[in-house]
């Protein structure tokens, strides 16, 4: 067992999201809409020493396997993340996040003059660029601080 794994408790069934950029763990939870209210056991390691990243965050979610859609979205803020699906304390699957072509209903457009902010019955949709995302309606490009624009 590595030093990193010791810092956050082992889980029986669920998902370990490793190699999250240091300081982004809470954003990962927000992105996955995990606020503790639905009862999952969640463990966080923040600013954990990492050989490859210097420092990193680790998120462990007990009793929940992330869907592909959630992984796609996760790729926007944690492009280096590795995902371990845990079953009976063993790593059953290892996955990497892959950026999707578009994300819908995850981020709000920061442009106040965008039609998606005008009370229309539409989910904001963004095309994923090599750096950042772009509103499919008003074409505003968001490069930095994507998590500031997460839909509540």
């Amino acid at each position, binding site marked *: 067992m590595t030093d990193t794994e010791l810092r956050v408790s082992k889980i029986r069934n669920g998902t370990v999201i490793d190699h999250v950029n240091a300081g982004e763990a809470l954003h990962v939870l927000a992105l996955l809409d995990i606020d503790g209210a639905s009862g999952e056991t969640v463990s966080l390691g923040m600013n954990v020493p990492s050989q490859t990243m210097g420092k990193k965050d680790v998120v462990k979610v007990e009793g929940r396997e992330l869907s592909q859609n959630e992984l796609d979205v996760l790729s926007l803020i944690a492009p280096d993340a590795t995902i371990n699906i845990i079953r009976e304390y063993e790593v059953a699957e290892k996955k990497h996040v892959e950026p999707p072509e578009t994300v819908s209903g995850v981020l709000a457009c920061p442009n106040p*003059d965008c*039609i998606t902010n005008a009370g229309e019955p539409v989910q904001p949709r963004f095309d994923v660029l090599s750096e950042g995302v772009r509103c499919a*309606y*008003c*074409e505003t490009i968001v490069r930095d601080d994507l998590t500031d624009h997460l839909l509540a």
Partner: protein
Amino acid sequence: MRHDHLLTAKQLTRADIEAVLDRAREFADDPSAFRERHPELLLALCFFEPSTRTKMSFETAAKRLGGDVVDMGSVESSSVKKGESLADTVRVIEGYADAIVLRHPKQGAAQLASEYVDVPVVNAGDGAGHHPSQTLLDLYTIRENAGLDDLSIGILGDLKYGRTVHSLAHALTKFDARQHFISPESLKLPRGVRYDLHEAGANVREHESLDDVLPNLDVLYVTRIQRERFPDEEEYRKVAGKYSIDTETLEHARDDLSIMHPLPRVDEIAPELDDTGHATYFSQAHNGVPVRMALLDSLL
């Protein structure tokens, strides 16, 4: 053109553009000869923001083709005032008309509308976004005056919020054009447009002063700088005068420089230029009718 909608100039290929401009030439040569062309056409004009010339030129174009229009009327007098969504409005109007021409103050409105209806949607201006039918008439005018290849064009004024500028810049990437963007720092092209121009490999330069580039230009495309775009009056006054064009400004311009403007102008172009060979803005406006006839013809 084999598109269902005209939402941005980006979607148009060079061949699409040339086909519309060629057709527009035929319509311009004899505007009254095509009355039997689309007698079935009923065009819905949905203007959520006032516009005299864009609306009238679409109306004229539809009628010149033998068709007719239905007009949503002003926003004040419509159900929009009661809080109806755009999505609902266009779904209702889809049942009345063969195509929808949409002008809206919000960016992305035409894109949204196109996702809710099966009839063609023509974006006639969506906030600071796009105005592709204006671009077609701009290109028509440029082609008539300077040609569309080996073109040096200066685009001056409010490049940040100017939707006609955004559409024109996209379309010019399909041709061999050198685009010079001239604006105050605070009104430079938005990031999204720069991104597209870069992706398209466009030949683009940015300037704060017109003097640097004026002698090389075939076309100078002037847009209005609106006072309300500036954080304070002082900032506005610093730049406003700098970008007004008069005979003195043009001292070092080429004799065949063509000056364009999507109109209405306020004080960007001195009236003393109206009778000179440089003034292309009125014929530019007139070109709106044959070009929109050709556009409607291609969508129907």
